[in-house]
């Protein structure tokens, strides 16, 4: 009965495992019992769906949330949200958060001795349009050290949060920048077994949408789980 409504399962190696000992925090937090398979019932094919009502007019522009402009390299981050059947995900709430251009989060537990920027909070929201497209304006975040080992550094990244169309499509992830040498040694990025899947998290320089004399653009497309079977084409 539930089969026609189910969402596709991810393929092997596409998602990180819970236990990835190279990322030390997983050791005491990854469940040790196998997950119990859950059929997709009404509880999983419904889910929180939010759109424009959650987004203020400047929430998509992290460079205009204070009186002055933040320091750093202004960038545009844009792309398309679709499902694994290639259909756009329209009118969907996206949330992002990130470190500033010095690699510091405006957060009480971030002790990295890099400067805070009074003109940068680091949190944003936007809604995809009818074609699933989105666009943020922000500052390129910097790398920062973390406690995973004595010389561990996170590659520059932006956190993304999406609800999609159902409880089963909820996704929180991170976007990385092309050519970052820290990617090769990052325990979090390299937790994704399949190299092709891993590199879906690396955005692409997009000269077409770059605004001359103002900001480089980076394109980051996001693919959420699609339906197993679609009863109607349309």
């Amino acid at each position: 009965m539930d089969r026609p409504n189910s969402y596709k399962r991810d393929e092997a190696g596409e998602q990180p495992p819970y236990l990835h000992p190279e990322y030390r925090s997983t050791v005491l937090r990854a469940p040790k019992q196998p997950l119990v398979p859950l059929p997709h019932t009404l509880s999983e094919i419904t889910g929180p769906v939010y759109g424009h009502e959650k987004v203020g007019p400047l929430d998509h522009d992290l460079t205009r949330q204070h009186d002055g402009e933040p320091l750093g390299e202004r960038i545009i981050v844009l792309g398309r949200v679709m499902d694994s059947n290639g259909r756009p995900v329209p009118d969907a709430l996206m949330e992002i958060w990130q470190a500033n251009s010095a690699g510091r989060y405006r957060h009480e537990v971030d002790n990295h001795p890099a400067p805070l920027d009074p003109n940068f909070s680091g949190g944003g929201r936007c809604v995809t349009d009818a074609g699933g497209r989105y666009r943020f304006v922000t500052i390129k975040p910097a790398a920062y050290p973390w406690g995973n080992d004595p010389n561990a550094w996170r590659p520059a990244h932006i956190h993304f949060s999406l609800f999609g169309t159902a409880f089963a499509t909820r996704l929180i992830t991170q976007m990385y920048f092309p050519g970052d040498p820290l990617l090769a040694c990052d325990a979090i990025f390299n937790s994704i077994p399949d190299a092709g899947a891993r590199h879906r998290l690396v955005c692409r320089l997009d000269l077409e949408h770059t605004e001359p004399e103002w900001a480089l653009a980076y394109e980051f497309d996001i693919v959420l789980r699609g339906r197993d079977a679609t009863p109607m084409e349309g």
Partner: protein
Amino acid sequence: MATRHGTTPSQTIGPFHRIMVPWEGGAELVAPDHPAAIHIQGCILDGAGQPVDDSVIEIWQANVHGRYAHAEDTREVPLVEGFEGFGRAITDGDGRFDIVTVKPGCVPGPGETVQAPHIALSVFARGLLKQLVTRIYFADEAAANDQDPVLRTITEPGRRDTLLAVPRASGGAPPVYDFEICLQGPRETVFFDV
């Protein structure tokens, strides 16, 4: 056969999610003085028994009548104005959270089955490369729980009980249910592959 586009992998929410734009309403799905309000209070513990004090929990549930506020729930069951069924909370320094909501009604399961009242719950945290998904059922719904198609698949009694929120004996108003989430250990919570 259409081409399948590979899905975007999950990554950890990390420790710095408090700089997200705050979620209006948090985990108060109804006002605390709502006549049907209940509290679900709990904590999240890691494999060393230490509180997980930097996690985000999200919940999703049907309303008191068992209707989801979502376009795909098209049944002739009433919606409740203002009840969205979603909440988000950040665990405190002791790994604790407090959800204020109403007990959901029953919803259909696969085939002709009926699912007992339950709340879907996701845990996001540093050290979790992907969210963990569990369900909150209610210990005082024994008859419905015995018929629930998901609970029936969990045959070890100790495991099944990890999904039950237990009414607190004090009997105050609004009622309080306790729900502990253990990521590992002898009382490891049942987590689902959704």
